[in-house]
């Protein structure tokens, strides 16, 4: 991925778009690349979320809550209300899933608000310029397509699991061939089976693709804009507009961060609710 140094903004951005990559195979086949930055940061953020909520869950009281517990409860009730409005059934597994998605995606998105050069600056300060030039790292895990696809495929598996659980293995498979076009005569049923199946495959596959691409596109684009604005600050002439744009974009981005996390969560709930419906 690393291209020849071209200097200026192009090089700066290309440098920033490289992942910290570890390869586990001898022939360096691209599939065996592991993006350590995405993995480590997302895992750390997940751990922070778990620790944070667990600390309050451990000493949760039904009496007067502390401010910390109240905050955690507000988040939980917010998520639970969304689930309650969309999904009518046993919420004991659905709400925790929605909560995990919302908080994890939100925290990963929020990494976008850290200064784009913070990571590089730390590496340079600790290890020197030479190391920094060869060290790549991106701090927004959701701006990595692997993260978003990983999430959306996991969600797809959960959605299919819900479908099978609600309708049974046979009912679920049968519905793949009999919906959305319903027929009453046997001949028409056979004729419609193929188009039905194709439509269902497309519909099922479009779910994770749209989920993953939406989140990835938003976060990748947002990151890119931050980098372009950072490029403005190189010159003293454009420094002040650079600061203004950076602030404006960061404030706007707070909305996108929360909104994308919310959309990912909501769509997951909607998919689960639809999967449990009978056609």
């Amino acid at each position: 991925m690393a291209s020849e140094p071209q200097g200026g903004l192009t090089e700066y951005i290309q440098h920033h778009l490289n992942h910290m990559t570890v390869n586990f195979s001898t022939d360096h086949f691209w599939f065996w690349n592991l993006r350590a930055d995405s993995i480590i940061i997302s895992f750390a953020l997940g751990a922070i979320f778990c620790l944070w909520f667990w600390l309050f869950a451990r000493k949760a009281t039904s009496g007067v809550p502390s401010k910390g517990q109240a905050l955690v409860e507000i988040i939980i009730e917010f998520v639970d209300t969304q689930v309650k409005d969309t999904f009518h059934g046993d919420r004991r597994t659905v709400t925790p899933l929605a909560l995990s998605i919302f908080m994890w995606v939100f925290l990963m998105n929020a990494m976008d608000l850290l200064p784009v050069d913070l990571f590089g600056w730390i590496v340079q300060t600790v290890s020197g310029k030479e190391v920094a030039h060869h060290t790549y790292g991106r701090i927004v895990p959701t701006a990595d397509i692997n993260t978003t696809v990983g999430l959306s495929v996991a969600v797809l598996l959960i959605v299919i699991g819900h479908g099978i659980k609600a309708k049974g293995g046979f009912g679920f498979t049968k519905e793949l061939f009999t919906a959305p076009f319903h027929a009453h005569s046997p001949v028409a049923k056979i004729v419609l089976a193929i188009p039905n199946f194709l439509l269902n495959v497309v519909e099922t596959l479009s779910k994770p693709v749209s989920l993953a691409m939406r989140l990835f596109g938003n976060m990748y684009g947002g990151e890119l804009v931050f980098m372009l604005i950072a490029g403005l600050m190189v010159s003293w002439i454009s420094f002040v507009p650079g600061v203004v744009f950076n602030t404006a974009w960061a404030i706007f981005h707070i909305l996108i961060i929360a909104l994308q996390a919310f959309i990912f969560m909501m769509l997951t709930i909607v998919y689960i609710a639809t999967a449990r419906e009978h056609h």
Partner: protein
Amino acid sequence: MEINMTFLGQMISFAILVWFTTKFIWPQLNGAIEERQKKVADGLAAAERARAELKDADAKVASEIKQARQQSTDIIDKAQAQANAIIEKARVEATDEINRLKAQAQDEIASMAQRAREQLREQVGKLAVQGAEKIVQREIDPAAHKALLDQLAAEI
């Protein structure tokens, strides 16, 4: 835009995260929230009940105060009547006493007057005897004329 091992790694991370949330975070916090909701609902119901009870108690207190006031009025009335009766009785007794004393005094006066009259009569008898002695110049034997003298005294 390449899909690689990271994808699997993120899926596993996600699975762990969901498992942890489902097991250690959601049940405890949701339990606390639901329990508090129940407590608040119970508290509101209790407050409502207490308000109704207070209203009842207020009404009861008012009726009891009214009753007590009535009773006290009755007692005062009764006491006044009793006092009147006592005074009346005392008056009657006093009047009787006065009348009795008056009658006694009148009797005494009457008997004293009687006695005085008798003494007077006796002395008049004696004076009459002495006067007659002087007139007759001789002694009259009181013993011989006792019946006569007594008759004279009785006539005076």
